[in-house]
């Protein structure tokens, strides 16, 4: 029940409960002892008094002198708590009584010797003896009310002492608990500040060399360690970022010179082959002219490779400019742009496609590559069937797919499909450089999505890619 209250209250409650319990037990023990001793001493006092009265009244009893006996009993006036007394003769009849006209009902006959407590009174019988012979019995009744009054008074004092003690205990514990609670509270406050503001530079104040001091030291040490790690982490991140920036700049410079310098010699090859063909075509035989064609074609192919590689590198490093893109109209746009490459009949099936958040130019490139592939690899079919659609994966992603009934591929090589310059067909079967799907994979992954494919030789192929619905 103390679990959820603040530690200060916890400590004080524990202290007060402990001291209160101790005080209460002490008082109770004291009280019980008081009552017992009081009763015992009263019994002793009464029996002593009884012995005196007995000794004095032997003559009166022996001589049957009622007046003398009454007079002896009257001496009990000196003890006001004795409310009644009586002498019984050997016959058991009341012989004399005190006070003389007492309204109190005396026992009609003497009972067993000894005293007992009943209803706030102590009463009892005692033998009157002379030379070993019993002459009669003395009865006495003592009012304990006064004694209880006195006990009540003491109880009140004890209660007062208890209240004062508890108050003192409260004040003391309020002061002393601070020794324990303050360092803990200070630690808690610092821990709270650290976790809320992520400020690892703060330190807890140490109050002493006890266990709490040790705890504070350990806590501060941990903070220092975290601060140091944080600082070096930031430094390392900055360092790496710098290195990356340099690498990126170098890459840009590299691709710039690729773009500019590598293409020039190819242009020259193609250009001069062309000039040579014009100049000396008649001097060359069939084989020579074929060689020239091959040289020119190779130069152009290399030009295409370089261009594709540049596009790939641009797709990899250019900034993503995300915007809302209507996939469906983009797909139709790309399809229309590719009309020129369509030779046979194609049955299109384009489902309704959602709007996504993507870099429009890059997203268009993805569709151009996938739809272009579908057209290319299904051109031997009549009619070719190309299906484009989208499903909701259910875990916050759209999964788009492009399916064709073309030549397909062997699933054994599925891993190679998305690699740079990786091809599953010879160039004389299907033209291409093998960069398209690498571009698709790179672009999709930069958008936080995945790419995969399914296919069967001569059984068509399906290319999938996922895109997160929301970008963070």
């Amino acid at each position, binding site marked *: 029940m103390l679990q959820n209250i603040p530690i200060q209250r916890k400590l004080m409650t524990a202290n007060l409960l402990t001291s209160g319990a101790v005080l209460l037990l002490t008082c109770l023990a004291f009280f019980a002892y008081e009552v017992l001793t009081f009763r015992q001493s009263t019994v002793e006092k009464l029996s002593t008094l009884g012995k005196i009265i007995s000794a004095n009244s032997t003559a009166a009893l022996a001589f049957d002198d009622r007046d003398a006996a009454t007079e002896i009993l009257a001496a009990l006036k000196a003890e006001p708590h004795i409310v009644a007394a009586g002498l019984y003769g050997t016959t058991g009849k009341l012989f004399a009584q005190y006070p003389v006209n007492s309204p109190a009902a005396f026992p009609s006959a003497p009972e067993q010797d000894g005293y007992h407590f009943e209803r706030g009174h102590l009463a009892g019988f005692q033998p009157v003896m002379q030379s070993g012979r019993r002459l009669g019995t003395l009865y006495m009744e003592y009012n304990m009310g006064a004694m209880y009054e006195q006990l009540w008074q003491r109880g009140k004092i004890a209660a007062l002492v208890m209240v004062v003690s508890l108050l003192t205990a409260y004040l003391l514990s309020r002061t002393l608990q601070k020794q324990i609670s303050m360092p803990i509270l200070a630690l808690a406050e610092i821990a709270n500040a650290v976790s809320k503001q992520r400020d690892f530079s703060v330190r807890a104040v140490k109050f002493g060399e006890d266990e709490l001091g040790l705890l504070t030291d350990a806590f501060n040490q941990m903070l220092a360690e975290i601060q140091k790690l944080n600082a070096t982490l930031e430094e390392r991140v900055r360092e790496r970022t710098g290195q990356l920036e340099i690498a990126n700049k170098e890459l840009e410079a590299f691709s710039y010179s690729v773009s*500019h*310098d590598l293409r020039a010699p190819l242009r020259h090859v193609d250009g001069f082959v062309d000039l040579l063909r014009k100049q000396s075509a008649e001097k060359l035989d069939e084989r020579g002219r074929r060689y020239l064609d091959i040289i020119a074609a190779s130069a152009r192919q*290399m*030009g*295409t490779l370089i261009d594709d590689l540049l596009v790939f590198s641009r797709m990899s490093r250019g900034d993503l400019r995300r915007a809302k893109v209507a996939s469906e109209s983009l797909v139709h746009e790309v399809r229309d742009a590719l009309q020129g490459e369509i030779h046979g009949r194609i049955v299109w099936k384009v489902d309704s496609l959602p709007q996504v958040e993507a870099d429009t130019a890059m997203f268009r490139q993805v569709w151009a590559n996938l739809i272009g592939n579908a057209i290319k690899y299904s051109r031997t079919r009549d009619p070719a069937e190309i299906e484009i659609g989208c499903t909701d994966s259910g875990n916050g992603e759209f999964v788009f797919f492009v399916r064709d009934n073309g030549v397909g591929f062997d699933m054994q090589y599925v891993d190679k499909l998305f690699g740079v310059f990786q091809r599953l067909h010879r160039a004389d079967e299907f033209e291409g450089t093998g960069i398209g799907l690498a571009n698709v994979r790179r672009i999709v992954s930069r958008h936080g999505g995945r790419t995969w494919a399914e296919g069967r030789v001569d059984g068509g192929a399906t290319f999938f890619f996922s895109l997160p619905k929301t970008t963070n």
Partner: protein
Amino acid sequence: MAPLKRILLAEDSERDVELTMAALEENNLANEVVVARDGAEALDYLYNRGKFAGHANGFPVVVLLDLKMPKIDGLEVLKTMRSDPYLRHIPVVMITSSREEQDLIRSYELGVNAYVVKPVDFQKFVESVKQVGFFWAIVNEPPPGTMKRSG
């Protein structure tokens, strides 16, 4: 035949010069081409100095500029021309291998009139040069002060 006007071709690569000339010849545009082998020579021609001192050159009808040249590159030539009150109106066409976005942006920022990427395929290149030459040397009316073809 329409009067042919002078074209200034700034190109550092000898082979590119030859190919460009071949392309222009194929289109009968080669007659009045002046070749500068770097940016500095191009500016010499425009300012009648150095190698070209003493020639009554007049302004070319168009300057075909390569981007990457020794000494002074194409962008610097363009910048100099655009900040000169006498040269600022001369049409400039970049003819370059670079398709880099930054080059395109810089060129247009500096006020280039056209930007042509040299294709690897020579036939396409011939076609590009033909169109550029035909448009700037024949169709387009150059700013006043441009030298007409001497008889």
